[in-house]
């Protein structure tokens, strides 16, 4: 029976730096290849609507006539299904997070 099993671990923790990050003073540790904000590059887009059809949450809207591409950031789950299916490689996932928002507006490009 041991009553001091935790003591070694506690002493070690007391002597080392905190493992947590001093947010917001410390910078966010970015892990490469993490799935974050969906980035749209307008140049190559042919407005084929494949991304809109594939999106599991229906976050993407495409208007071929007006040449407009829109995304509802609050509905996007950053799954990357649209990135995989885009025939012109217009879409990519960055490691950033979507900016905080107080309205439910769609980002239109």
């Amino acid at each position: 029976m041991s009553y001091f099993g935790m003591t070694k671990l506690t002493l070690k923790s007391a002597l080392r730096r905190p493992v947590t990050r001093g947010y917001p003073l410390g910078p966010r540790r970015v892990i490469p290849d993490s799935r974050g904000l969906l980035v749209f590059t307008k140049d190559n887009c042919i407005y084929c609507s494949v991304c809109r059809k594939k999106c599991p949450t229906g976050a993407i809207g495409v208007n071929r006539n007006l040449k407009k591409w829109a995304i509802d950031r609050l509905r996007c789950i950053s799954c990357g299904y649209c990135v995989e299916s885009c025939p012109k490689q217009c879409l990519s996932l960055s490691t950033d997070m979507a900016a905080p928002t107080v309205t439910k507006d769609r980002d239109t490009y």
Partner: protein
Amino acid sequence: MPRTIIPFGPQHPVLPEPIHLELAIEDERVVDVIPTIGFVHRGLEKLVERKDYQEFVYVAERICGICSFIHGQTYCQAIETIMKIEVPPRARYLRTIWGELSRIHSHLLWLGLLADSFGFESLFMHSWRIREKVLDIIEATTGGRVIFGSCKIGGVRRDIDPVAFQAMLAQLGLIEKDMREIVTVFLNDSTVKERLVGVGILSKGEAHALGCVGPTLRASGVSQDMRQLGYAAFDEISVEPITRPEGDCHARCSVRCAELFQSVDIIRRAVAKIPDGLIATKVTGNPSGEYLARTEQPRGEVAYYLKANGTKNLQRFRVRTPTFANLPALVKMLPGSFLADVPVIVLTIDPCISCTER
């Protein structure tokens, strides 16, 4: 002796998710339990009628926030069997590796919650500190921390390169060392033992008769592990179920502690044996037929029943989650225990209510 009815949950400090137990108490002892579920039902099974079978992988992954990867994997396995799709060997190994990483992170989360349930806050923090490192490996290899999103029908979405494998193994070595420190406390510390040993005993016969699954079943001495069915790469990587004969809360804790190291060992063997090649095969057409897929989740066996009729939407989808199978055992374990032990006993079945209610 007068009886008192004490409601336990749906909101309770030890419960991350809502389940309600009506405890009939005589003095300080529980004599009867009536469980109620249904607070977080989301109707995910009905959603197969609206999402096509390829899109539904994302829904299947979101059935549970802890064992998300294995939910997605089980769904994919069922569809692949119906459509007779041959999954490339490399993809099967990658699924095994991610599945075991998810088991380590789930067990560490559970150990933390258990420590929290008997008031050992520092041990809870240490468990979650180590879990964070596992989540970092998962994020670096799949892109997501909890929802992996890397499994798809016919294979996996991402590959892991040899450099990332070496970094993963190095990090796993450190994690294993950290885990040994906390596991020693969980298994040997007197404070922990006083709360767990001899509490919530479930005999081997009862565990078997009530249809328990996973660590709850193995802690009662029944040797059963769905990984022995040989899904993913488990046909080439053998798994010996970890069992304990006691059937009490400490045995359930001890089984999960041993499984942490077993999973690390499986990952090492999988990385050593992983073949080169494709990570996915092309999927065309729609499924037609039915299948029952079974895999071993951190909490136990999960069963997926799928029925497809040749259209892009499935006809029927049914999930039997491990917590649902373990709830009858919980009702059996509680009578006779002290009221103060109820939170600990409830936690030792590792209740995942969002899974249970889907």
